[in-house]
C-alpha cells in the first residue's frame, strides 16, 4: 500500500437539480487510488456509483452539477476545470469504458480511423506511427489478427470484441487511470472471464490504476485490490477486498454479501435485505440505510461519520458488525 497515490478524491458532491427537487446522487465521496491498483466501486442502482465515475471524467450534464469537493489526479486539480481543460485530460490521463462499448465507438467509422484520431487529438505524431500504436493496443487486449481487424467497422465485431476495442481505445494514450462502468455486465460468462483476464494482466504489467464500477460483488472479489461500497450517494464501507468480503463492518455490505445465493445453504431461503433503496429526492435524516437495517436504533437518526475502524478500513455506521473481534483501539 506504499505505492504512489495517483488519484485522490475528497468530499465529492454531485447533485442533480431537477424539477422535482435536488437529487444528491453523490454526496461526500472520498477515496484514493494508487498506481497499479484496482478499486471496486460497488453499489445498486441509484447508489451514485456511475455518477461518481462520470464526475471523475467531467461528464456530468445539466441538470447535474459538481457542487463541491476535490479531484486530484497526480498534482493537478480537476474539480472546477472548464470543458476545454477536461478535453485535454480526457482520453490522455484519465479514460472511461462504458457498459455499452458503442458509447465510445462511432458506428460509421472504421476502427483505425477512430483510434488514429484518438491518438492524434493528444499527441503530435504521424498517421502511420499512430496506426502502429493502435495496432499494438489491439494486440495488447488480446484481439486476434489486429492488422486485419484495424480496418473493420464496429458492427463487424461481437459484443465481447467491441468491449475489447473500447478498452484498447482507452489505453491508447497510456492514461494513469481508467474508469470502467459495468464493462462486463452485458457480456456472457465466458466472454466476461476473457475481458477480466486481459484487464488483470494490464494492471499488473503497466501500473495502470483502475476504478471498476459494478453491482457484482463476485467480480470485485476476483479482480479488485480494494473495494468501496456505495449506498444512496455515500460510501458506507471501504477497505481491502478480502477483509471487507470476509468480515464486513456495515450492515448493508453484510446484507449484500449474505444475499448472494452461494453464501446460503442450497435450497434454503436467502438472507434478504428488506425493503428497497430510498429515493434520492427524499433521503431520510441520518443514516440512509436505517429503514432497512436490522441494527438501527435511535442513534441512527444522526448521520454517522466514515470512521477508520481498523487499519485501512473505514465504515459509516453507529453499530458496525464484528467490532468485538476487531478492537477499535488498533489505530489509536
Amino acid at each position, binding site marked *: 500500500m506504499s505505492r504512489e497515490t495517483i488519484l485522490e478524491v475528497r468530499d465529492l458532491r454531485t447533485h442533480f437539480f431537477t424539477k422535482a427537487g435536488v437529487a444528491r446522487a453523490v454526496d461526500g465521496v472520498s477515496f484514493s487510488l494508487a498506481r497499479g491498483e484496482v478499486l471496486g466501486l460497488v453499489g445498486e442502482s441509484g447508489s451514485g456509483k456511475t455518477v461518481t465515475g462520470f464526475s471523475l471524467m467531467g461528464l456530468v450534464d445539466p441538470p447535474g452539477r459538481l457542487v463541491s469537493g476535490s479531484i486530484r489526479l497526480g498534482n493537478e486539480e480537476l474539480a472546477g476545470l472548464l470543458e476545454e481543460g477536461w478535453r485535454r485530460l480526457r482520453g490522455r490521463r484519465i479514460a472511461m469504458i462504458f457498459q455499452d462499448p458503442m458509447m465510445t465507438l462511432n458506428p460509421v467509422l472504421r476502427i483505425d480511423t477512430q483510434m488514429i484520431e484518438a491518438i492524434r487529438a493528444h499527441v503530435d505524431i504521424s498517421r502511420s506511427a499512430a496506426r502502429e500504436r493502435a495496432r499494438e493496443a489491439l494486440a495488447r487486449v488480446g484481439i486476434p489478427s489486429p492488422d486485419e481487424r484495424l480496418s473493420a467497422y464496429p458492427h463487424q465485431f461481437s459484443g465481447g470484441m467491441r468491449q475489447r476495442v473500447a478498452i484498447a481505445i482507452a489505453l491508447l494514450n497510456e492514461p494513469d487511470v481508467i474508469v470502467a462502468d459495468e464493462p462486463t455486465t452485458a457480456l456472457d460468462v465466458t466472454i466476461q472471464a476473457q475481458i477480466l483476464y486481459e484487464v488483470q494482466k494490464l494492471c499488473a504489467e503497466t501500473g495502470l490504476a483502475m476504478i471498476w464500477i459494478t453491482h457484482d460483488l463476485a467480480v470485485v472479489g476476483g479482480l479488485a485490490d480494494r473495494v468501496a461500497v456505495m449506498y444512496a450517494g455515500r460510501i458506507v464501507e471501504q477497505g481491502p477486498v478480502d477483509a471487507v468480503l470476509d468480515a464486513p463492518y456495515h450492515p448493508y455490505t453484510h446484507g449484500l454479501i449474505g444475499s448472494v445465493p452461494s453464501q446460503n445453504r442450497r435450497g434454503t*431461503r436467502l438472507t434478504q435485505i428488506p*425493503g*428497497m433503496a430510498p429515493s434520492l429526492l427524499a433521503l431520510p435524516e441520518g443514516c440512509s440505510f436505517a429503514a432497512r437495517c436490522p441494527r438501527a436504533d435511535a442513534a441512527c437518526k444522526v448521520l454517522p461519520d466514515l470512521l477508520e475502524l481498523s487499519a485501512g478500513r473505514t465504515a459509516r455506521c453507529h453499530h458496525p458488525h464484528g467490532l468485538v473481534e476487531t478492537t477499535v483501539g488498533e489505530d489509536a
Partner: protein
Amino acid sequence: MASTETPIAGIAAPRRADTPFRRFLSDFTDSRLAVLAAIGLAIVILAALLAPWISPQNPYDLAVVSVFDARLPPGSQSMDGVTFWLGTDGSGRDLLSAILYGLRISLSVGVASAAIALTIGMIVGLVAAYAGGRTEGVIMRIVDIQLSLPAVLIALILLAILGKGIDKIIIALVIAQWAYYARTVRASALVERRREYVEAAACLGLSHARIVFRHILPNCIAPLIVVGTVQTAHAIALEATLSFLGVGLPQTEPSLGLLIANGFDYMLSGKYWISVFPGVALLITIVTINIVGDQLRDALNPRLQK
C-alpha cells in the same frame, strides 16, 4: 415460513401519486409557446362552434345581407348602423361573420376527415402489424403507393370524378390521408407487439382481438394523436387549396378557402381585406394546431420520459 413473511411493510409506497395524464399535462406545459397556441386554438374552436350566436349577422340570410354594403373597408357602418369590423365582401356580407361561419366549415371538414382517416388507418395498420407475413406485405405496398402520390393530386382527381360537396371532399381527404395513419400505427404496433407484455397476454390465453385492441392499441395512441393533429391541419389546408381552386366546396357552403378565392379578384383593386382576413384566420388555425401538435409529440414521446 409462509409467503406472508414477504416484507409488505418494508416495501415503500410507489413513487408519486400521478397518472399518465397528469404527467403528460406537466410535460406539455413546459413550453410557454405551446400553452399560448393551445389557448389560441381553443378560442378558434370555440369561435367556430359558437358562430351562429356570436356573429354580428347571419351571412347567409339574404334578408339581412344587402348588396349596397358590398366591399366596404374595415370599420365601416352599414346603412342600418351596424359596424363591419373587418369590412364586407363582394356580396355585402359582414366579413367577420363570414369568417366565423367559414371557420366552422373548415374545421368540421378537417376534423371529420381526420377522424375517419384515423379510424381506417388505425385498423389497417394494426391488422398489418399483428398479422404479419403476406397480409402485411400487401397492405404496406398499397400504403407505399398511396404515399408516393401527392395528396393534392389524389384529391383533385377524386373531386373531378365525384363532384362538389362537403361529403365528397371529406371522402377525398380521407382517401388522401388514411395511409399516414396506417404507417404510423403499424410502426408503433410492431414495436409493441414484440414487448413481453404481449407475450404475457398470449400466455394468459387472451384472444387476438383482445390483445390487439386492449393491449397493443392503447400503447400506440400517443403517436396517433400527434399525427392526428398535424394531419388535421393538413386536411384544413388541403380543403382550402381545393376550394380556392374551385373544386372543393360549393358557394353555398363557403369555407375559408372559398372566401379567400372570392376576395382574390379584388386584391389588385386595393380591397385587400376580403382575401387577407380569411387568410389570417386560416393561418392562425393551422399554425396553432401545428405548434400544439409539435409539443404533443415531445410530451408524449416515451423516449423522453424517464
